[in-house]
């Protein structure tokens, strides 16, 4: 429906686990202010994740046969758990995992297929063989941390990480677990994805958030970074994008609904419009959201007048931007509405308020 749905249960974010070329861990993330728009060298389409040292983060063994996205996801989960101060002895049946990804398996699948053409089945290393499956990153988080409530992988282009967050919120609301780690992990993107995402992409990234019911968080005196109040997940078909009045009506109804979902007494709302700049389709939807924001005195656009165009981490982009804002706004009195727009028509809205 074209209005965000209010959550029946109180759900708070109690920790963030970012892994990106800008920052690994919350402390680094809070100190970074450039991720909205950076200007890479013109001839560079893929930027390495130099700062990530798997051996330092994950120890001597157990990760070498895993694809990079699974390594990033494991580290992001550990960081989010530490940031939320989750008890190491917490019963794994109480923690679920929902992960978005677009490229967790892309490089592996490409390499396997080339090896099969060159050498046959024996060209594939058995130890690496499971990595063709795009859900290996999410699964490895559960194997590593023992999180057993549920484990789901969502993969829609660019919006999957935000869908994962919303799906996790709804699973907590349904009483499937009191805690979930949700977000996205990305591996190396294929070069051609620059045509619909951004001219320069990162080799990898991950960001998981620790979501928790307010009851569970309160019982262990956790420190919430924000409360998820409402959310929406819908599709904007090409026919709607091509009809400006329909697009405006849809976007404005979503954002009006988002504001209505907020508690009284806040000083305003920050609107974070996250979309891949190379996609004209996403840009058209973003423009409608930006127009709504510009027309309201109590709303401000995150990342400058164009909303910030950096979107180098595919489905991890929006969770990273969300974590970044949560890491900095512990005392803010403003709400945050994140509107995440994919190049293929997917749209996810998350409505957060500061916690009292």
């Amino acid at each position, binding site marked *: 429906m074209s209005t965000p749905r209010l959550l029946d249960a109180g759900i708070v974010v109690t920790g963030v686990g970012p892994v990106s070329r800008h920052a690994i861990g919350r402390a680094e993330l809070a100190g970074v202010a450039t991720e909205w728009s950076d200007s890479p060298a013109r001839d560079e389409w893929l930027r390495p994740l130099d700062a990530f040292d798997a051996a330092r983060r994950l120890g*001597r*063994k157990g990760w*070498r*046969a895993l694809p990079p996205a699974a390594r990033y996801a494991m580290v992001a989960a550990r960081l989010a758990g530490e940031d939320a101060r989750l008890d190491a002895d917490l019963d794994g049946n109480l923690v679920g995992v929902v992960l978005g990804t677009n490229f967790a398996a892309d490089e592996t699948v490409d390499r396997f297929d080339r090896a099969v053409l060159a050498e046959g089945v024996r060209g594939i*290393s*058995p*130890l690496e*063989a*499971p990595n063709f499956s795009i859900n290996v990153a999410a699964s490895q988080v559960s194997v590593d941390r023992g999180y057993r409530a549920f484990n789901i992988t969502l993969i829609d282009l660019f919006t999957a990480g935000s869908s994962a967050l919303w799906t996790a919120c709804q699973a907590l609301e349904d009483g499937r677990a009191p805690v979930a780690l949700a977000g996205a992990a990305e591996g190396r993107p294929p070069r051609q994805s620059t045509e619909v995402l951004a001219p320069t992409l990162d080799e990898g990234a991950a960001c998981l958030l620790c979501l928790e019911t307010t009851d569970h968080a309160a019982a262990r005196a956790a420190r919430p970074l924000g409360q998820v109040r409402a959310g929406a997940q819908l599709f904007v078909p090409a026919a709607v994008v091509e009809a400006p009045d329909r697009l405006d009506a849809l976007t404005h109804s979503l954002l009006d609904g988002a504001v209505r979902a907020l508690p009284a007494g806040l000083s305003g709302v920050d609107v974070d419009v996250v979309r891949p700049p190379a996609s004209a389709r996403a840009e058209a939807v973003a423009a409608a959201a930006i127009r709504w924001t510009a027309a309201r005195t109590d709303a401000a656009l995150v990342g400058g007048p164009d909303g910030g165009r950096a979107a180098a981490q595919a489905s991890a982009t929006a969770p990273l931007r969300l974590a970044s804002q949560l890491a900095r706004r512990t005392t803010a009195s403003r709400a945050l509405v994140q509107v995440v727009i994919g190049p293929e028509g997917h749209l996810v809205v998350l409505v957060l308020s500061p916690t009292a």
Partner: protein
Amino acid sequence: MTTAIQQHLDEIREIAAEVLEIEPEEITETSSFAEEHEADSLRAIEILARIEKKYNVEIPQAELPKMVNLRAVYDVVAQHAGWAA
């Protein structure tokens, strides 16, 4: 023990150590891959695959259950590679 046998044992030990992510010295001829070195079925197949590649032999996966430690692996490989006992 002849040098040839010792050399093969050392080579296989090296392969197993790499797959099991431990130091070669930790593997004795009879230390159990599964119980002492945390080998699972995937790592066992990986050891088999690397041995096949190195010695250019084909070893059926049906032999895997036998390959529980270094000595047992050597025996299976020796049989399929036609190494003299």
